């Protein structure tokens, strides 16, 4: 079984998006999506781990026996997460302080062991790395969208704290509605994360449905338009 690169990318970013479709990795997704930069930071760390672990697991897939594969996957993933955590602490110290416990928790992100088991253990190294990259980017994009939404609605800023990631020069990147904007605190609080994710999932369904309808249309007569199903 081989999947085309195009398919791997579209699965990761959209069709089988780990956050919106598979609903994996909700713990970091909901906890760290309070600002766009936090989302980006955790997303990139997760992507890095996904690419490395997928590559390694694909590389060793023919040597590791079935019965010990899960412990080996967990070992590989935990080692990479520790390495990434140390590296972030060394080079992105402030961001590391903010993301805190959620970087070590990447170990428990089901997406990673999920991709190891479902993809990397059955596919060659290059495809597995591409799968890690696409799945990671899909996850990162959702984290950033959710983070951006919550940050904007909740505190009226976009890209606040950009300097934590890109250095002092990036301070000017952040945009603020000004002190007059009081913000909807709900968006920043944990329930806001659930509402936001729910809305994003709904939005994805609407878009998918539209696309499916559009694809059907040429075949159908334009007269028979069934009542719009979605409310």
């Amino acid at each position: 079984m081989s999947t085309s690169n195009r398919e791997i990318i579209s699965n990761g970013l959209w069709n089988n998006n780990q956050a919106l479709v598979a609903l994996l990795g909700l713990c970091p997704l909901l906890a760290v999506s309070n600002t766009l930069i936090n989302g980006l930071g955790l997303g990139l760390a997760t992507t890095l781990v996904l690419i490395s672990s997928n590559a390694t697991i694909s590389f060793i897939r023919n040597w590791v026996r079935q019965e010990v594969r899960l412990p080996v996957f967990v070992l590989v993933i935990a080692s990479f997460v520790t390495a990434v955590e140390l590296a972030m602490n060394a080079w992105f110290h402030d961001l590391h302080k903010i993301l805190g416990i959620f970087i070590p928790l990447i170990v428990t992100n089901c997406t990673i062991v999920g991709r190891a088991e479902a993809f990397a253990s059955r596919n060659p190294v290059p495809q597995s790395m591409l799968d890690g990259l696409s799945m990671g980017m899909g996850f990162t994009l959702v984290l950033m969208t959710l983070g951006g939404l919550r940050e904007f609605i909740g505190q009226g800023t976009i890209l606040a704290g950009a300097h934590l990631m890109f250095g002092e020069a990036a301070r000017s990147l952040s945009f603020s509605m000004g002190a007059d904007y009081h913000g909807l605190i709900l968006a920043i609080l944990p329930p806001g994360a659930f509402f936001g994710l729910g809305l994003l999932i709904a939005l994805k369904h609407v878009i998918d449905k539209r696309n499916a309808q559009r694809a059907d249309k040429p075949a159908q007569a334009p007269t028979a338009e069934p009542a719009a199903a979605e409310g």
Partner: protein
Amino acid sequence: MPELKRNIFISAAILGIFGILGATLVSLTWTATAERIALNQKQAFLNNVFKLIDKEEIDNDLLTDVITLHAPSLAKTEFKAYRARKAGKPVAVIFSPVQAPGYASPINLMVGIRHDGTLGGVRVLSHMETPGLGDKIDAERSDWILSFTGKSLGNPPLEQWKVKKDGGVFDQFTGATITPRSVVATVRKALEYYAREKENLFKAPAQKLDEVPMH
């Protein structure tokens, strides 16, 4: 039976090999980053201190001029007093971390007190207050915490070391009184502690700090 033994052995060997490989990766990264991480922590700590007492006013190494204190009114656990000096003369003392009881969990503060008893300033190191309400104590969120700078036990008078709602001079936040009330009370206690212990604080022999402060 020999078949089973063989299987167990092979599985264990595979796991062992990956254990060694994993440990190698982690150890290598650790070696490559440990020094930088310690430096980061030290720098982050000093950056906080220099917000309270100007860098130019200090010429000693704060991290080697430390004593450990225990005062239940300021923190449940031990905390440190870093002594800032210039040309051997006491300039200020930094208490860190002082804990104010928060709405959710303790608020960790760094309190800098000048030798004459005025506040160099106060900063929040970490807290779990409600975002959008109590988190205004954080200097990143509002200027409230800066209002302590320059205050002392006589300015404002002791009975006005409270939030405005309680008849004092410090602002509270709409929707969150508990947090600022607790921070104001704790800072006042830190000043009182300093007034009592001032002499000893600067005289006590320095301890060796075996790890870089996390805050």
